[in-house]
Each structure stands twice: as C-alpha cells, then as structure tokens.
C-alpha cells in the first residue's frame, strides 16, 4: 500500500519553521462587502506569510474578518464580497510533470488575479490548499457516503506514478496516471484509518447521518488531506465539538502535519487551542491586523492593548481569588461606521486623547518578527 502514498515533495522538516521556503504571501489584502447600507471593509490591509510546514494562527472576535481572509485565499469570498486590493502570492511547487514531462520548480501565482471559477484556481483549491470548516454536522452532503466524498477529491486531484524502468540521465523520470475507482476506495479507507475512524472498511460506506459529529470532522479532515495538500486552512475546525473530541482532532492534525510537511492556517477564537498549535499568530480586530508575533512572544510579551485584553479575558484555573473575569470594555463597533483613527480607540484602556482618535497607526516592527499596529509604539 505504500505505493499509494508517494513522497512527491522534498522534505524540509529538518529546518526551523521560519527558515523554510515561503508558501503563501499575503500582501496588504483588502476585501470589501458592498451592502445596502454602505461598504463594509471586512479585511483591510492584511499582511502575513506562511512558510512550508508552518502553522500560522489567526485569532480575533467573531466578525473580525478571519473567515473572509481564509475564503479570499481560495477565491471563495461569498457575494457581494470582493477583493479590492492587495496580493495573495502562492508559491506553487509543481507536483506532477506537465504534458511535456517537465516539472517547473516554483511558480508564483497571484491568487487575486485568477478567475474564481477557472481551471487553475480549482486545481489549487482542494488539491494544493485544502480547507475545512467549522460546521462538521452539515459539511458533508447528506446523500453521499463518506467514501463518495473522499473519492470525489481523490479522483479530482491525485495522480499515481507509473514506475518507469529506464532511468534517463541521473533523474528518474516518472509518469503519472489517474487513480482508478478501486484505488480511490483503497486510498479513502487508508485516509479514514489515518484520522482514527474505527472499522474504516465499513465506515467508508456510511452516510453522514450515521456518523457522530467528531467522526464527521475526522472525515472532513480525511477528505482535505487525501489530496496531499501543501496547506490546510482550518476555519474553527473544533469549535462545534466537545473538549475531548477537540483534543483528539488537534492531535490528528498535528500528527498529520508532521508526516506530510503541510502548512496550516488555523483560524480560531480559542486562545488555548492556538497556543498549542501555532508557530506564529496574527491578531485581527475589525478587519485590521493589530499584532503579529511568534507564539511565545505574543503570549508572554503582548504589545497591542487589544491583544493584552484578549489574553486577560481567558479564565484561569487555580485557587479562588474572587476577582471577576476581565472583559474588554465597550461594544464591537458597527462595521459600517468604524471609529476614526485607530479602530480600537473607543474600547482601549491605553487611549490617548487627541492622538488615537485622529491618527491611523502604522504597521511597526517592535521586536524581531514582532509587528504591531498601535500609536503607543510609534515615535
């Protein structure tokens, strides 16, 4: 069965995550929703990059633009949303040789320039960048079996090598062919086994309503990983699950990430989950990126008042202190009428009158690879 999982990419797991080659580069991304009452800037000037095999976490309150960012990368922003600026550069490592039998090393594709229904974007979507969503209960089409879902992804994106005996020059020339029905089923069963579904030979023929919530999310992960993607976008994958199932799912994701050398963009509002998963964290507030840092820096040395407030609002275990759980003052502003200056200033404990409500803060580097958007750190 090993032949069904050819290692088709160079292993770079030996390198530390920030020295690995870049996989995805988001530059000043802007996404707007033109709705009846005006324009909502769902994502406004987001900049970050993801390296191969690295996990980047995106955190923020509901409605801060996390999910829209994820969808923008795959060109799946729902109507009436539009990408209005910036670039999403995807460093495409060709996996299979093209028709002339040649493999290009790296091709840089600006995702924002692609036709959202085009051939290329559909090859990348699901095949090279896979995505799983929050709702495990309704993420599978109710009338198709787990195997049918897996089969769909596998036959669409996977090719199998045909062993060629004659080596030309030094390199071994490989030829690829489409997966047959039987092989797709075999891969599907293997994938279900890898995500820890018991009796995968039987479960492959189960319909979604015959699976539990945790099993459905495992099936979703199996589908996403069955195409051996370079990157997985996980949009709150465990939010709807109970804590013990959440831990199992996170374990599976970590384990598969290591064996497959896959990057993960992990979107959540759960700080505990992100601390255990991510290498680097982007904090978003009202469509704007307010801070970006390595996970250790962010948790031990947060700079932006919003990040600090978020961290303080996490309940802590320990002896009773009688202290109330800290919360962030004020309300999330109306996205149609964002405050002037820094969008966080009406709720900010470090508010500086005459400054924060007038000036828009810039993206400033305050430490090594630690960026923040706050006037406290500007000259």
């Amino acid at each position, binding site marked *: 069965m090993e032949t069904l999982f050819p290692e088709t990419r160079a292993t770079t797991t030996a390198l530390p995550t920030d020295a690995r080659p870049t996989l995805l580069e988001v530059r000043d991304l802007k996404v707007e929703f033109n709705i009846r009452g005006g324009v909502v800037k769902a994502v406004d000037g987001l900049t970050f990059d993801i390296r191969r095999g690295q996990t980047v976490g995106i955190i923020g309150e509901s409605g801060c633009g996390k999910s829209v960012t994820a969808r923008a990368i795959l060109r799946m922003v729902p109507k009436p949303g539009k990408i209005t600026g910036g670039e999403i550069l995807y460093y495409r490592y060709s996996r299979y040789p093209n028709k002339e039998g040649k493999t290009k090393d790296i091709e840089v594709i600006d995702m924002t320039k692609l036709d959202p229904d085009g051939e290329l974007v559909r090859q*990348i979507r699901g095949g090279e960048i896979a995505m799983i969503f929050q709702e495990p209960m309704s993420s599978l089409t109710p009338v198709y079996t787990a195997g049918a879902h897996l089969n769909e992804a596998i036959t669409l994106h996977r090719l199998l090598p045909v062993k060629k005996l004659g080596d030309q020059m030094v390199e071994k020339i490989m030829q690829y062919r489409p997966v047959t029905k039987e092989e797709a089923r075999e891969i599907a069963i293997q994938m279900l086994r890898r995500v820890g579904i018991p009796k995968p030979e039987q479960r492959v023929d189960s319909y979604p309503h015959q699976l539990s919530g945790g099993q459905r999310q495992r099936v979703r992960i199996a589908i996403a990983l069955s195409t051996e993607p370079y990157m997985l976008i996980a949009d709150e994958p465990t939010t709807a699950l109970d804590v013990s199932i959440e831990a199992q799912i996170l374990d599976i994701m970590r384990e598969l990430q290591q064996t497959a050398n896959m990057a993960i963009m992990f979107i959540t509002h759960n700080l505990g989950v992100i601390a255990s998963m991510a290498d680097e964290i982007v904090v978003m507030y009202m469509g704007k990126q307010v801070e970006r840092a390595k996970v250790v820096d962010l948790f031990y040395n947060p700079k932006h008042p919003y990040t600090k407030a978020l961290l303080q609002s996490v309940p802590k275990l320990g002896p009773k202190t009688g202290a109330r759980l800290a919360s962030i003052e004020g309300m999330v502003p109306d996205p149609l009428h964002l405050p002037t200056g820094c969008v966080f200033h009406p709720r900010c404990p470090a508010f500086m009158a005459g400054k924060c409500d007038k000036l828009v803060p810039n993206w400033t580097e305050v430490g090594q690879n630690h960026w923040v958007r706050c006037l406290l750190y500007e000259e």
Partner: protein
Amino acid sequence: MVNYLIRRIGYALIMVVLVSFVSFVIIELPPGDFLTQKVEQLRARGDRSAEQQVEMLRLRYGLDKPFLERYINWATNFLRGDFGESFEFERPVSEILGARLGYTVILALATTLITWFLAIPLGVISAVKQYSLTDQIISVISFIGLGMPGFLLALIIMYFAIIVFNLEVTGLFSPQFQDAPWSFAKFMDLLGHLWLPALIAAVTGIGGLVRIMRGNLLDTLGQPFVESARARGLKNRTVVWKHAVRIAINPLITILGAEVFPSIVVGSALVSIVLNLPTIGPVFVDSLRKLDMYLAGTCIVFLTIMLLVGNLVADLLLAWVDPRIRLE
C-alpha cells in the same frame, strides 16, 4: 423497505374504501335522484307512461333499497369489475370510461413529466442567477402561470390557434386516426396532439414548482456542505447539480405527490372540457350535474386510486433518492 411498502399499500387500500363510501354519501346528499329528473323530463314532454317507466327503472337499479345495501352491492360489484350502469347513457360504466381512463393516465403522466422537465431547470437557473434579468423574467412568467387558471389559458391558446394560425388543437387525434386501430402512426399522432393540452395543464404546476425550486436551492446553496464541495475544487456546475440540487429537490418530490399530481388530475378536467379531450374529467363533471351516481362514484374511485398511486410513487422515489429516509 419491503415492510414499509406493504404498509403503504395497505393504507392506500383502506383509503380507497373510505373515499368510495364518502363519495357515495355525497352523491346521495342532494335531494332527489337521477330518476326524479327523468320523470320531470318525461312529464314535461307529456308522456303519460312516465310513472310506470320510472317504477320499472327504480326496480332495475335497486333504487328502492336502503342506502347501505346499495353501497355494499355497488362496492362488491366494483371489485368484480362491474361498475354498474350509467342512467344517463344507459350503458355500462366500464364501457363509457374504458378508453378514457387510459387517456387520463397518459395526460396526467405527460403533464407531470413536462412540469418537472421545465420547472426544475427554470428554478435552478433562477436561483443560480439570483436577481439577474433572467431570474426576473422567469419569476414574472412563473407568477403569471401560477395565477392563470388552466382553462383560461386553454381558451386563449385555442383562440389564437384557430383564428391566427388556423390550427386544430382540440381532441387527442387527427380525424383520420379517430377510429383507426392502434398503430405506430396513431401513437405518433397522439403524441403530436398530447403535448399542448399537457403543457396547458402543466402551467399552473410549473409556476408553483419554479418558485419552490428557486427558494429551496437558494437555501441549500448557503449550506456548509455546498461551500465544502466548492472548496474541494469541484466545477461550479458539479457543485450546483450534484451537491445542491440533489438536496434541494427532495421536498419537491413530496410536493409532487401531495400537491402537484392532484391539482393536475383536477385541473386537467377543466382543460379537457375546453379542449374536448376524451379523459375522465368532462364525464365526471357531467355525471355529478346529472346525479348519475354509479358513473360519478366510479370516476371518484379511479381518481382516488390515481392520486394514491401518485403519492406512493413519490414516497418510494423519495426513499430511493434520500438515504436518510431509506435507512430509517
């Protein structure tokens, strides 16, 4: 599944018995019977032998017997294939309805097929291109179709066909095939005549189904599994048809059995009268007006059976397409 099927057929049989009884009661409700009308007619003509004739008929049809006895008598004969005799035509009911029954079934099936083959694609286009010009046009037309009674449309089309295009649109056969034995040519002639009445009878159903399909599909397109399917890299068309329409269509199958099919059977009666089609509908309406009770009763029972079979087929179809129901 077999159990389910047997249970459903059992219920259907009980339903037929109940409906036949209730319809018999309803036919009896208006004062007088067919013979009272006949007597009036004969009297008006000054026929003095009327009274004796009527007494003879009363005995012959057993109209002097109590109600329940007449019902049981009729029902048991029904099972033997003897549907009684029509007072009006003085011929066995089976003879009058025989060929008409077949045409009624054919017309209903053709109407159902046309309804589905037009309503579903139109509903899908309307939903996928929501708020576009195409959507607006389809919506306006389907509301007009929904609002216009089938017989009115039949009259309008007949007017234009005869006055403007000089076409013959009534009946199910061309004159030369009317009494000809069945042949391939006659069958093709039937198809050539059938599509127009079927389309007219389908219009109301199409109007409604387009709207329902559009609404269901818009709901389904917002479901996470549709987004998941798209995130797998599937083509837009595959996402819409294989994942969204496949789910959105399920309620339509139920509606087909419970609402559309009955309204086709009922609605086509009026269309049949206008277009002079040899279906059960016109005979049924006429028999009710003339209190021709055995004929009316037989029509009701056959229409009921058609509806129940339609319902059963819809339920089986639903179980076949939806594993959530099949595997219950």
